[in-house]
């Protein structure tokens, strides 16, 4: 819709950009952005305006303000991965996905906050501090929360965004941008999407280029898409998907961008409900919501069946082995020699390396490196790494079997509960939290399947809860069609944020969608 507004001249790209920039400023307490690229964004907006004046917009994304998670390389703009190791690092090149968006005329507002090197499920463990969930400040949440004291202090009650793409989710949720890029390795796009009440799409592995995405787990990472509605996600997908010669893991097949049909008849659809996703710790609220959603499909005529993905319970432990092993390998390049932080210690190369890495990485990263190296030791390799790869195959096969049996799409919860208050969340360490929170999202990364979080309803505490759809490999069109239908049914409420209201001149108001 905003694209249409741009086209028709109701609003200009520079106005739009300026509004977003000033909204970013007034929502600074969310800490969603690490870097705001004000100058370049305005330049891009001006260029877009020129094109619109000439009646030659590059496409639907021309002039649309977007944000990018800070683990994507952006030429000339700092890329930090929320780590001391890359503080001040100005990349000389754009990630393919960033380049594609820029080529479409999108306006890059800035880089969003995350857990350091995308390791975490809260967006609380980056060096620039935690991201705050915009819903913490929403009327909906404030109404439901019990006032702890009479003080105006916002501090203790704010809830996390989830992670690791929390900054991107918060940015989209708080209307400071119309779409954002995240990354998803174990749920890092879908998890914060659920907690922040936005759409979070994890595409099929190999569909979108990872060139320029600073890797966590090369064999599971995908660029993630965060938007306010499913149609927008489809548009973003259309601009980003396709073979990239610079990424040898992208598929060669031609990708055709699609428009989502307005599905009315779901009677031909078969929805699978995997029983193992009734995981320990799943809140009764979400369980009820999940059940309600299943009923929704059934009542509309779809076939809803219980299915089994028996190896689900091994996915966390399997992920732990494979993830840490790849992390240990991927982080080996950070030695302070070519780029990034370099310690002053210079007694010897080894001591410089050691000091640089100790100073540059947080405990979470270092912990994973140590674990990963352990699993990769010759004497352990067979027992852990090979074993985990075999288990990974079994997990992936679970899905193959289920989809082969006639199920089109799986319906599961995305998170175990609504967003936790920050003070609660940090009581457990990163590893514990990740293990808990990834359980519902991780398996899709193991199997390389597309999955999407659709905001469904508000919890009793007034916070968003989302549900997840998992689809067949490369069948994003079907997945998003189902998701869109569901989105229409549930009519998830819009966030009511003071700050947004102040900046709204009608553009943000009556639409969630760009």
């Amino acid at each position, binding site marked *: 819709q905003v694209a249409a507004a741009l086209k028709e001249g109701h609003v200009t790209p520079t106005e739009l950009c300026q509004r977003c920039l000033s909204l970013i400023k007034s929502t600074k307490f969310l800490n969603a952005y690490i870097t705001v690229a004000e100058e370049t964004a305005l330049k891009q907006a001006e260029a877009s305006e020129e094109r619109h004046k000439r009646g030659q917009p590059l496409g639907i994304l021309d002039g649309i303000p977007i944000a990018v998670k800070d683990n*994507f*390389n952006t030429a000339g703009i700092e890329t930090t*991965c929320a780590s001391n190791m*890359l503080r001040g690092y100005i*990349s*000389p*090149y754009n*990630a393919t996905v960033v380049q594609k968006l820029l080529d479409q005329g999108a306006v890059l507002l800035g880089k969003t906050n995350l857990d350091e090197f995308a390791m975490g499920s809260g967006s609380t463990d980056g060096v620039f501090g935690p991201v705050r969930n915009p819903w913490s400040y929403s009327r909906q949440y404030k109404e439901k929360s019990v006032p702890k004291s009479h003080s105006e202090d916002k501090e203790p009650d704010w809830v996390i965004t989830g992670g690791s793409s929390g900054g991107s989710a918060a940015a989209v949720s708080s209307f400071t941008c119309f779409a954002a890029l995240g990354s998803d390795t174990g749920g890092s796009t879908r998890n914060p999407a659920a907690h922040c009440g936005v759409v979070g799409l994890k595409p099929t592995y190999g569909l979108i280029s*990872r*060139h*320029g*995405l*600073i*890797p966590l*787990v*090369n*064999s599971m990472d995908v660029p993630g898409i965060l938007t306010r509605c499913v149609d927008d996600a489809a548009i973003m997908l259309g601009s980003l998907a396709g073979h990239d*010669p*610079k*990424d*040898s*893991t992208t598929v060669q097949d031609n990708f055709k961008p699609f428009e989502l049909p307005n599905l009315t008849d779901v009677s031909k659809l078969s929805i699978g409900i995997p029983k193992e996703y009734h995981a320990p710790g799943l809140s009764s609220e979400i369980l009820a919501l999940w059940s309600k959603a299943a009923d929704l499909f059934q009542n509309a005529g779809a076939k809803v069946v219980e299915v089994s993905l028996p190896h689900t319970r091994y996915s966390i432990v399997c992920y732990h082995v494979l993830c840490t*092993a*790849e992390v*240990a*390998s991927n*982080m*080996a*390049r*950070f*030695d302070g*020699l*070519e*780029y990034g932080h370099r310690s002053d210690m210079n007694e010897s*190369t*080894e001591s410089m*390396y050691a000091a640089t890495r100790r100073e540059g990485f947080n405990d979470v990263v270092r912990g994973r490196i140590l674990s990963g*190296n352990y699993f*990769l*030791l*010759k004497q352990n*390799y067979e027992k852990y*790494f090979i074993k985990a790869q075999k288990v990974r195959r079994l997990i992936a096969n679970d899905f193959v079997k289920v989809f082969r049996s006639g199920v089109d799409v799986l319906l599961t919860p995305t998170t175990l509960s609504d967003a936790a208050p920050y003070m609660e969340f940090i009581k457990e360490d990163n590893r514990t939290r990740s293990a808990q929170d990834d359980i519902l999202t991780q398996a899709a990364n193991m199997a390389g399947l597309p999955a999407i979080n659709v905001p469904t309803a508000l919890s009793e505490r007034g916070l968003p809860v989302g549900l997840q759809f998992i689809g067949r490999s490369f069948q994003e069109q079907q997945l998003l069609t189902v998701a869109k239908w569901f989105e229409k049914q549930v009519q998830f409420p819009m966030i009511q944020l003071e700050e947004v209201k102040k900046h709204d001149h009608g553009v943000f108001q009556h639409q969630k969608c760009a």
Partner: protein
Amino acid sequence: LAPWVPVVGLEIHAQISSNSKLFSGSQVQFAAPPNSLVSFFDASLPGTLPVLNRRCVEAAVMTGLALNCSINKKSLFDRKHYFYADLPAGYQITQQRVPIAVNGSLSYSLCIDNKMSQMVTKTVRIKQIQLEQDSGKSLHDDTRSQTLVDLNRAGVGLMEVVMEPDMCCGEEAAAAVRELQLILQTLGSSQAVMAEGQLRVDANVSVHHPGEPYGVRTEVKNINSIRFLAKAVDYEIQRQIEELENGGTILNETRAFDSKLGCTVPMRDKEGKQDYRFMPEPNLPPLILYDAKSLPANMNHQQVINIDWIHERLPDLPSVKREKLVEQYGILPEHSFTLLNEEGLAEFFENVVKQTQMKPKKVIGWILQDLLSYLKQHSLTVKESPVSSFLLADLLNLLEKKEISSTAAKQVLAELWKGEGKTPLEIVKEQKLQLLQDQKELEQICQAVIDRQENE
């Protein structure tokens, strides 16, 4: 004293002759200004990904075929981890699990007792050929206690050729490497010039008594020429024998060859007994190669490599060239070896043969003795020879037509080396070297000589 059986195996790294590196588009060039040929990927900038270079794969396939290997239609890439300043990513991409070619063989020849007259053919098994990245270069500046790193070489494609321990001495190792060098140069898959680091050889050496299991082996590095290879291997064999005979033990260590002292010394422990924590390279799918049978019908020709297609286009290998020379010209096998051993010499020989009536069997003597020894004396390559094949052919024609004697011919040749642009005929006339055919004139000269004798 019980006899010792030395056992020598080799690990040879040959730089692939290609325009760009194995996984990135930066150029491959020797002696360029430091860090001028480094792409983002080579510098290990975060977020960069490897993209396989087709030419490098072809080079490896060619080399595998030339060495009688089985080419693996599916091979895999792995990461080998260690920390070193010239390895920006902290790991090398190599092929540890399934390399591109396995189970080949290389035949080479040796002269027995340094006589060129008796050559014996030996074979060494090729365990495998794998594709891998070269590292950058570190220059240690001890005065300023710093290390200077040049990444130009980082990421250049290498073929590692592993030769089984079928060799027994320095001479065999040297001959095997020399033959490999010629093969690589013939194929064009590597220029294989040791002095430019395009061919690097590490030797694995051990000794044992016959009937007993192999001894502990050492690895010898820092060998910069084929000559030094022979020396290093022989020294190490000797050292190990002496050590063991004196009741010592051999450590499984890496030693460096010191060319000045002619010995091997324990190396500064660069890697120690390292665990390289091998892991599959997740950014590169398995490398699939096809042959005529397995080639899918609708495949884009540009996207695939057809092993049979490459096989059909292999040039004549040195061994084949030698056979042809022997057959065609009736020269001895030893001769063909020397001809091929010197760059351009075989062509020179053939050019002379074309332009002269002298039999190749006779020409070869002039080539191998006169021409070659002169070139060697003056450290010239065949290309740099002041005597062209045309001139030599001209000279040999005079000899063949009996216009000059062979002694005279050698004199003319000596004059030709000066490169003053005179033809053989001109030199003959100048120095009055013509053979006199006229009977009467000869009689007169003889008579004159006899007369002079009588007068003394």
